[in-house]
Each structure stands twice: as C-alpha cells, then as structure tokens.
C-alpha cells in the first residue's frame, strides 16, 4: 500500500476555509490532550478563555486592546510574507516603535503642555520611523549583500530587547524600577471610556484609538496588495521571482521598501501600545506580539481582512491565557495551531491517494506534473 499526493488543479474555496477551521479545531483538541496530560483540566481552561475574553462587553473591550498590536504586527508580517520575505523581526520593530514614541515624550524636545494633537502625531511618526529603520537594516543587508533575513531579523529582536532594557533600567528609569514614569495625558490615545460622560455605556471600556489605526492599516494594506500596481509586483515576486525578474521588476528595491513599510507597521503597533494601553515604556512590554503575528499572518493566508479576525482570536488567547496554568499553554497552543495549519494546507493543495497495489514503474506511468 502506498500513499501518494496528487496536486489539485484548483482547490474549491470552501475546502480552504474548512481546512483552516478544521486545523484550529484539531489543534485545540491536541492542546487539550496535552493540558490534560500535565494535570490540567482542558475543558475548564477553554471555557475560562472563552468567558474571560468574550464573556462581557468589558472583557471584549480588553480583548480588542490585546488584538490591536496583533493586527498591526500581523499586517507587517502578512505584507512581507506575501513577497516571501521572512520578516521574523516584528517583535524588535514593535519594541523600537515603542521606544521611538516614548522618546518623543521623555526626551523633553516638546515644551510642557504641548497639546495632544501635536504630541500624538509626532509619537506616531517617531514610532513608525524607528520601526522602519529597524526593518531597513535586514532589508538592505538582504537586498545588497544577500544576507539571510531570517537570521538578521531574529538577532535584531534580541538587540532591541536589550536596547529597551538599557533605557528603562538606566536613563529613563523611574526611581530604580524597570519602567519609565507615566506619560502625561497629552500622550495618551483617546479611549472609549474618555467619552463616558456623554455616552454612559462607554464607562470603563479600554478600547483606544489604536484599534482604528489597525483597521485603517488593514484597509490600506488590502488596497496596496489587491488593487495597486505595486501590490501586483509584490505578489508576483512572491509567487515567482523568476517571472518578476523577466517582467523587469526591481526586486531589490521592492525588498527594501517592503521591509521598511513592514517595520513601520510594527513600529506603529509599539507606539499604539505605549500611548494607548500601557502609558509608559517598561521591560517586557510585549508578551511576544511580534511572534504571534507570524502565526496570525499565516492563519490569515496573508489576507489583511482575515488578519483582523485572527488577531481578535489570538488577542483573546493572550488575554485569558495569562491566568491559565501552566503558563506556557498559550505559546504551546499557538505552535500546535501553526503545525495543524501547515498540514491542512497540504490537504488543500494535494489530493491524498491511498493505493493498495504498488504503482507501476514511476518514470513511464506517472503523468507529467508541472514543476
């Protein structure tokens, strides 16, 4: 008996969607079995996650707060991955973005009492610029010297982490704690709860303007990828670099620009997190948003709209997963989901044939398969 994989000419749309959902379900079942194996209660864990993230308007709002940086970093990854550019550095670009935004507030370049309409755009610009620079380094190294971007982006994550630690332990430390002082209110992104005086229902809701940044960015990335000439180039390079070269597309230039835009998106996520949610810079400001973003981009098949949906699901996992024991469970679930997705992908792309008799001599009988 042999098992053969035959490429499908065209996979039906429903199959792809069903396989993705199926993969997530299978991953949750496997994760549940592991949770049970190490002495936890999987059903209670899952019910807890569901309840603590979608159970009320208040926690739903907290879920959206966690989803906000994931949407932006997820878009950063999706854009780069669409070109088959492995930007694994969204985490570092996020951190640099948070640092850049913080520098605007704490460096003292703005006089006291500068209004929010000036401070916030400057923080956005600084965050995006810092993230873009952090993305440009691996981009330029790859385009000009052919240096593997996976290694460089990963290493730069560690460098960014120590860079943040230097500032929050050192120059910006608030009386020896590993954090800066709280930002003045001008540097806070507006929250729904700020409008509770006019709309009482908004009381206590933490959702901030960063979510709008994420949604707008998703729209822009969709327009770029699906409706612009530049997006066509990105997709062509991703699908077939050789064809792109014959078509006269400047791959090196696209590589650098995409890396910069990707870094800027992740940097904006960092800005939105310090200005919208934490209101200060601190050590461990990211629970791994930039890494979760990789899985989100893959789960969304690099589609900006689906990045938003996947980000909300993973935001829930991160929010509610904090209280789940053992503490590694959310990370483990993420890994298992990614593996299940890879396997389901194969099932979409290929038809699995199980043959009871060995196939005839391969060279002659096998139909020619496009390579």
């Amino acid at each position, binding site marked *: 008996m042999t098992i053969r994989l035959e490429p499908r000419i065209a996979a039906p749309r429903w199959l792809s969607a069903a396989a993705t959902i199926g993969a997530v379900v299978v991953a949750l079942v496997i994760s549940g079995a592991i949770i049970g194996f190490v002495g936890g209660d999987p059903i209670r864990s899952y019910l807890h996650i569901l309840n603590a993230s979608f159970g009320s308007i208040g926690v739903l709002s907290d879920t959206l707060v966690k989803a906000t940086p994931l949407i932006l970093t997820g878009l950063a990854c999706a854009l780069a991955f669409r070109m088959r550019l492995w930007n694994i550095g969204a985490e570092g670009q996020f951190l640099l973005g948070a640092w850049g935004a913080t520098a605007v507030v704490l460096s003292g370049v703005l006089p006291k009492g500068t209004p929010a309409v000036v401070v916030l755009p400057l923080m956005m610009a600084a965050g995006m610029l810092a993230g873009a620079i952090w993305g440009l380094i691996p981009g330029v190294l790859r385009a000009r010297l052919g240096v*593997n971007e996976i290694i460089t982006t990963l290493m730069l994550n560690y460098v960014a982490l120590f860079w943040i630690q230097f500032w929050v332990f050192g120059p910006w430390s608030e009386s020896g704690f590993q954090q800066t002082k709280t930002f003045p209110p001008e540097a806070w992104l507006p929250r729904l709860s700020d409008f509770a005086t006019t709309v009482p229902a908004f009381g206590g809701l933490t959702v901030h303007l960063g979510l709008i940044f994420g949604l707008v960015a998703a729209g822009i990335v969709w327009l770029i990828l699906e409706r612009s000439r530049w997006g066509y180039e990105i997709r062509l390079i991703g699908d077939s670099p050789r064809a792109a070269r014959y078509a006269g597309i400047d791959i090196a230039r696209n590589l650098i620009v995409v890396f910069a835009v990707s870094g800027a998106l992740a940097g904006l996520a960092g800005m939105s997190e310090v200005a919208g949610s934490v209101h200060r810079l601190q050590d461990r400001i990211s629970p791994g948003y930039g890494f979760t973003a990789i899985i989100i981009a893959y789960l969304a098949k690099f589609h900006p709209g689906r990045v938003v949906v996947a980000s909300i699901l993973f935001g829930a996992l991160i929010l509610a997963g904090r209280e789940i024991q053992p503490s590694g*469970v959310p990370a483990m679930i993420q890994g298992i989901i990614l593996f299940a997705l890879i*396997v389901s992908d194969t099932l979409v792309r290929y038809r699995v044939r199980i043959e009871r008799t060995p196939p005839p001599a391969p060279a002659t009988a096998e139909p020619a398969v496009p390579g």
Partner: protein
Amino acid sequence: MDLTLVLAAGIAAGTVLVFAAVGEIFAERAGVLNLGVEGMMLMGAVAGFSTSAATGNAWLGVLAGMIAGGLLALLHAVVTIHLRADQVVSGLALTFLGTGLARVLGEGLTNRVVATLPRLTVPVLSDVPIAGPILFRDQSILTYVGFIVVPIAWFWIERTRPGLHLRAIGEYPAAADAQGIGVYRLRYAYVILGGVLAGLGGAAITLAISPGWFGDQTVNGRGWIAVGLVIFARWNPIRVAIGAYLFGAIFRFILDIQGVHSILGIENPFLAGRSSTFFLEMLPYLFVIAVVILGSRAATRQRIGAPAALGTPYVRGERGA
C-alpha cells in the same frame, strides 16, 4: 579574572553550539532546512532536566533530551519531506511548538537541583602548556564528546561513501535517486540526527554547562545562533566548531567582565548592575549578524553556496532541480 578559566568556560559554553550547529549541518547538507533548532534545544533541555530530576541519573537525562529533540525533528521531517510543506514555516512552527511545550513541561522545575554529568581532567593532555588547562582540565564529559563529534562529522561528510550519498541528496536528489540512493529514507535519517544533536545541545545546557531550568531563557536564542553559524561556516563542521567555541568564549567573557572592578586602572563601565551592561548583552547577537554577513560574502565570492536542493522538497518523478 583568570583568562585561562574564562577560555576553558568558553570552550564548555561553545560545546552547546557545536552539537546544535553540527546537527543542523547534517540536516541542511541533506537538503532540509530546519529552523526549529531553538525549539528542539529547549525540548532537549527540559526533557533532560526533568528526567534527571525524576530518576537521579543524568545519563538518562541526556538520552531523554536526545530522544525529545529527535521526535520534534521527526515531525519536521514528516511535514516537509512527505507533506512537502514550506521548510521555513515548518521550522518556525517547530520553534513555537518546542518553546511552548518546553514551558508547559518545565512548569515547577525552576530552582530544582538535579544530578549533573561528571567532570574530568585528562591526565597527560591537561599538562600541555596553555592549551592543556583550557581544553582538558576539569571539563564536563560532554565537552570531550564535542571534541570527538566535530572530526567524526567532518570525516563522515567529506570522506566516506555514506557522506557522498548525503551530499548527493542535498545537491541533486533526482540524480541520487537514479543511482539507487533512498532520498526520502536518508533525508529522514539526517533530519532526525540533526534533532538528536540539537536535543543533546539542550541537555548539555541543563545537565552540564550551566545546570538549571530557567524557562525559555534556558536556551535564550542559542538555537538561532547555531543556525547563523552554519551559514558563516559554509556547511563545514570544522569551521562551525571554530565559530562555536569563539562564541562560547564571547558569552563567558561577557559574564565574567561584569565582575571586574577596574581594567588597566580604569573603572569598569560594565560592572554588574549598571545599565550599560545591556550593550554587552547585545554583542553575541550583533556578532551573529556580522558573521552571517561575512559568510554570505565569502560564499558569493568563492561560489560556495548552500546545498543546491536546500529548501526544496523532492518529489519522485517530478521534473525540475
């Protein structure tokens, strides 16, 4: 700060990288990129540590670490060789999976003290001036295993018939297949061997070099450094070993210099507890970027590239290289 002791400790720290990087060379020479080294090392580290904690036998821990690394690698092999998934994505998934799983399994292991592997001094060799005390005095037994693994790996790959087959399936699997070499079978074998060695590297951390379990900080990016070293070394075990021991020395130096109060009469700006030490901590990662740049440049200049079939699944009967 005794330079001999720093270098000796650096050799020990480099051993971890030697195991992981040599393992990755085997997998990549066979044509399969495995970016899951970090995850496999973490699983090796936690499996080794918890087994030693449960049984009191560090050797059983080493065995468990190698098995754990090998099992994760087997998953990567199935997904990339038979299911033809993208090797980059599968490797990343392996790192996530290994990291998360190791944290779940390692819950409650912090602060445990377990049986570790014996250390020994080689009688005659340790008396050789300069090199003796650095290489052969009071080293963990795994350090000596590392000394042996490197030449064996080199000899196997470059000078034996099975090594020729290994290179063939990584360069031109269709031709190897036509010669009657079992491409699938060998790729499985070498990917799993790579995982076993990565698991050994992880177990070497928790049971020999710096005993203890510190969550995902235990490996702290060393799996990725190993992947970078392979590029720097252009898939050669001897060069990878040189790089690994050099990095081990850098790691040790960074730790040890923080305990020195003054250097040549000048106050040490990197004294432990100062915020400037974070710049020291960046160094290994910046060095990786530097050596990968050097490796990429040398590879393009000398036209020594990656194994030609690296990253592409082999499908029997399908055209294309």
